[in-house]
């Protein structure tokens, strides 16, 4: 195995151009698990933690190697909330936003946030850059639109990121747990509402009928919330696996989305 440790973005992209099938290493929280368990033995690794451009966080842009620990401290409420639920403090010190995107787990905790904000994923290669909406980037479990020779530079958030945003996650342990269901709700100033649900489909999904139901409603009535909950439960596509059942996930998705919406509206 060879490891390349570029010190800037151009170096990283050149390395990637020379080794388009290289494994990208940032926090290591996914790659090293596969390496330790011998599921993966990469020939070439490109280590990204020295690339300053990838760690940038400025208005409207979050770099791919921003860690959960940093998200926890920053000012986007839902992002801070989700970051706090990821793994353990050790994992949060290492794991990155780009890793969550690259791994594309149906249960990835940062993904509902990106979906609820209609974020764009910025990809870079030696050829140039391109932007993909989150749902054109995330194609299925473990499957993304990333091409050989390309890396995730970061995500672009919309021009206005509303302050009313909230995240919640169900897991069967109080810490260090993979989501059974996770959820992010964003409320724009014009009343538009976005509801993104994770771990209840092949990728994170949006409950668009439910979104439409509560759009513009300042104080949804209990009856409207009942209907909202029902629609979310209807729109998700959960499966049964060793972590939970489809039936429970469907039920829980509705309850969780409803509560998260209420919390979001009262921010």
């Amino acid at each position, binding site marked *: *195995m*060879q*490891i390349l*440790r570029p010190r800037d973005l151009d170096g990283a992209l050149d390395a990637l151009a020379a080794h388009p099938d290289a494994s990208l*290493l940032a*926090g*290591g*929280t996914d*790659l*090293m*698990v596969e*390496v*330790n*368990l011998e599921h993966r*033995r*990469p020939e070439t*690794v490109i*280590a990204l*933690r020295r690339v300053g451009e990838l760690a940038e966080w400025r208005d409207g842009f979050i770099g791919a190697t921003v860690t959960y*620990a940093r998200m926890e401290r920053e000012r986007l409420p839902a992002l801070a909330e989700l970051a706090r639920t990821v*793994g*353990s*403090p*050790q*994992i949060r*010190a*290492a794991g990155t936003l780009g890793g969550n995107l690259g791994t594309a787990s149906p249960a990835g905790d940062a993904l509902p946030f990106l979906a609820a904000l209609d974020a764009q994923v910025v990809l870079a290669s030696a050829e140039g850059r391109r932007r993909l909406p989150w749902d054109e980037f995330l194609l299925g479990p473990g499957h993304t639109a990333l091409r050989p020779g390309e890396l995730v530079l970061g995500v672009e958030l919309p021009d206005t990121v509303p302050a009313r945003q909230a995240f919640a996650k169900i897991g069967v342990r*109080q*810490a*260090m747990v993979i989501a059974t269901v996770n959820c992010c709700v964003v409320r724009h100033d014009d009343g538009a509402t976005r509801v993104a649900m994770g771990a209840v489909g092949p990728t994170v999904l949006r409950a668009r009928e439910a979104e439409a139901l509560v759009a513009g409603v300042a104080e949804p009535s209990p009856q409207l919330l009942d209907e909202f909950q029902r629609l979310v439960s209807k729109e998700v596509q959960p499966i049964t696996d060793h972590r939970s059942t489809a039936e429970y996930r469907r039920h829980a998705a509705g309850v969780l989305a409803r509560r998260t919406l209420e919390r979001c509206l009262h921010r």
Partner: protein
Amino acid sequence: MIITLTVNGQPRTAEIAGWESLLWVLRERLGLPGAKDACLQGECGSCSVVLDGELVCSCLVMAADAEGARVTTAEGLGTIEQPHPVQQAFVDHGAVQCGYCTPGLVVAVAHLLERHPDASDDDLREALSGNLCRCTGYGSVLRAVAALRKEQA
């Protein structure tokens, strides 16, 4: 390949095979078995070390990427002759049973108290939630830290 890093204040060089984790290099190449290998996927914390100021799972650090890093392990905190106050407190308060999680927990507690000496019990529970202990049920660990805080106050 050869990597150079600073471990417990000492410059160290190790010849490593690709893919090796920092945990493996500490244990098998540098003779520092304090960090343990209970899960190899970042789900137990037994391999916790401080890497460039951050508490991390050394099993998830690719050693080749730790070139130039500063690492502190349980061995670097204290020795049998001169234990670190956290290490002494663990023994005094019964926080050591089988001991397999202990070096990682000790590193995590020392790191936390350095950064947040006034952490509450709930803060402590959250901060240590990545370090599984199968023997103690954590109560004695919390009592050890409470006693340390009292001493420092």
